[in-house]
């Protein structure tokens, strides 16, 4: 462990590498805060810079871009309700209400510090347990992954802002939308209504931008509300008191650890990690009703988890040669391009790669706080701008964000419709967040259920017999049904009293 630490710092504190990591952190935060530029896209955009670099330095640079972009995405999620990357969607739930109350600076402070802590914990876990964690993750077959996604879906029962029925409907609509397009197992088309544009399914980013950003601007168009200008035009990044940090210490730790582990799982990643941790913290909280109203607990869970997942996704890449997510796949291609033989022997033959990634993650997560504070300061100045200017700019950023995904105006159209539907949804009390959760987890849930059923020759019970799956399913069932049953009991008591 200490040798990894010393070697890692030895690599990243060489002047050339340090400057590169600093530069990587700056562009990572900037790319991450741009809607439509996902973390994997940020890493891809940084690829041309690594052509002349040595493999060890190249991976350190790309890791810095990756970690910083996840953090940068939290800035616009808090200030404008536009998640910079999909994994920042849960940051909007509490970050944006805080910004509206004039507490943008505090929300940003929590987001940055929790991101850094999450990233650093993930880096330590990666350096300490890389081979062991990979071995544990390999035990997760389709049945276990189905149970994990079901656990993520259990958040539906507590995302409700009034009616559980409405929240469940929203989540189910999200799950249904995830089935649109080519079925990945059989290759047949589902619910495309004869249009070619729906064949590859509904992309998540335009839907997410539409539901969050466009809906919000439409709400403000219908009923303009004032943001506390006096505080926000001055919105310096401020940090919560020690008492508040002390209160959320377990949230940060739990979310970082869960986030790291989810990051290791193939097909999961930062987005699922943030939703899962947000769920967990809502369930464990003494005041679950406060989640979504603008509390630092929600931001801490979301940002610690998605940064934890960045470290997690590097574990299978370094110890097994399997990329844990899209960004890791791009980094792997960069290593292959450099002639590095990625695979189980990498850590034994070239341990400097683990040291380099570890050192870069440590340094980036520290640098990132300072850099993101500066960038957030510039962004938060924008909050002082009147909404008659800010609203249209948010829409334009959303348009570019949706378009940049596939260079397609079809995605812009989808985003616009998602925004309009999001407005109707909010008008009738449905939950956009629940819909997004269904959309994010839908494919993972279905694909793994079908794989598990195939492996057990169609026997559902047989597919769910592993101890990990049973435990996860029991926890999911408890999380889903406890609030519903307690709600029913409460309603009956109220009826009896009246």
């Amino acid at each position, binding site marked *: 462990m200490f040798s990894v630490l010393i070697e890692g710092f030895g690599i990243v504190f060489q002047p050339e590498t340090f400057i590169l990591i600093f530069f990587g952190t700056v562009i990572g935060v900037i790319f991450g805060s741009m809607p439509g530029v996902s973390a994997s896209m940020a890493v891809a955009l940084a690829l041309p810079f690594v052509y002349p670099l040595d493999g060890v330095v190249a991976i350190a640079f790309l890791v810095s871009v990756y970690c910083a972009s996840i953090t940068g995405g939290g800035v616009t999620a808090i200030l404008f309700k536009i998640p910079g990357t999909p994994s920042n969607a849960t940051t909007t739930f509490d970050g944006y209400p805080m910004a509206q109350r004039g507490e943008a600076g505090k929300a940003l402070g929590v987001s940055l510090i929790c991101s850094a802590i999450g990233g650093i914990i993930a880096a330590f876990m990666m350096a300490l347990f890389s081979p062991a964690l990979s071995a544990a993750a390999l035990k997760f077959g389709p049945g276990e992954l189905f149970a994990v996604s079901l656990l993520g879906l259990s958040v539906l029962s507590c995302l409700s802002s009034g009616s559980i029925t409405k929240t*469940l409907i929203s989540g189910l609509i999200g799950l249904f939308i995830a089935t649109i397009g080519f079925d990945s197992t059989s290759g047949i088309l589902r619910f495309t209504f004869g249009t070619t544009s729906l064949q590859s399914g509904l992309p998540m980013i335009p839907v997410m931008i539409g539901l969050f950003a466009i809906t919000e601007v439409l709400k403000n168009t219908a009923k303009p509300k004032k943001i506390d200008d006096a505080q926000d035009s001055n919105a310096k990044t401020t940090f919560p008191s020690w008492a508040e940090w002390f209160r959320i210490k377990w949230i940060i730790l739990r979310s970082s650890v869960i986030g790291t582990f989810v990051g290791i799982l193939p097909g999961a990643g930062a987005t699922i990690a943030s939703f899962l941790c947000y769920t967990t913290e809502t369930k464990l909280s003494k005041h679950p009703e406060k989640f979504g109203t603008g509390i630092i607990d929600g931001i801490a869970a979301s940002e610690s988890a998605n940064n934890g997942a960045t470290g997690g996704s590097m574990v299978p890449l370094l110890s097994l040669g399997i990329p844990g997510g899209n960004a890791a796949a791009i980094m792997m291609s960069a290593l292959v391009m450099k002639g590095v033989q990625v695979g189980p022997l990498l850590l034994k033959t070239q341990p400097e790669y683990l040291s380099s990634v570890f050192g870069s993650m440590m340094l980036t997560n520290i640098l990132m706080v300072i850099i993101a504070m500066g960038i957030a300061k510039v962004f938060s100045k924008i909050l002082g701008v009147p909404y008659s200017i800010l609203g249209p700019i948010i829409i334009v950023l959303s*348009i570019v964000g949706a378009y*940049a995904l596939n260079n397609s105006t079809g995605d812009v159209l989808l985003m616009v419709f998602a925004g309009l539907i999001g407005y109707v949804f909010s008008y009738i009390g449905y939950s956009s967040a629940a819909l997004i959760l269904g959309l994010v987890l839908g494919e993972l849930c279905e694909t793994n259920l079908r794989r598990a059923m195939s492996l057990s020759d169609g026997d559902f019970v047989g597919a769910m017999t592993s101890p990990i799956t049973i435990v996860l399913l029991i926890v999911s069932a408890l999380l889903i049904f406890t609030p519903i049953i307690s709600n029913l009991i409460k309603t009956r008591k109220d009826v009896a009293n009246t």
Partner: protein
Amino acid sequence: MTLEILINMILTVFFSICLYLSTLLEDPGLDPLGAKKWPQVILVLLIALLISNIVQLYKKQKKDGESHSLKSVDFKGFFKSKLLIGMVMLVPIPFMLDFIGFIPTILMFLAGYMVLLGERKPVKIAIVSLVTTFVIFFIFSSGLSIMLPRGTGVFREFHMFLENIKILSNMKGVLSICFQF
């Protein structure tokens, strides 16, 4: 609440059609669950919950003594609202992007939406529209090499002329060379 019930009814009908369509899907039988079952389970649950929601809303409306008539819905107010204008302004954007390209579309949209949200100073509107459009254009088009919609004809030529002013990508090239040393 009548409008809410109506929207729930529309959703119920739509998802019922989807459920019917799911029965028509051809399943090659590659896996035990097939392509139909998962969406069918979702749709059945969805329709059941939508019906339950409609019943709940209807009961609540009756209890509150509200009218079930569609006349109780303020359609007139909606048709005169800024919200409808905002929605109408959004829908043509994707088509305009294809036809006249990024710069004219965004310039017009920004100016129009600012007026809609109550901005009345023409100089301010012009400056904000121009600066925002060109800053975003140069960041994404030149800096990140993301080709924004060019439009057709003269709009396309104008767009391509601006794309050739590669301020940020030249900077990126300089930085890349610096790192080689």
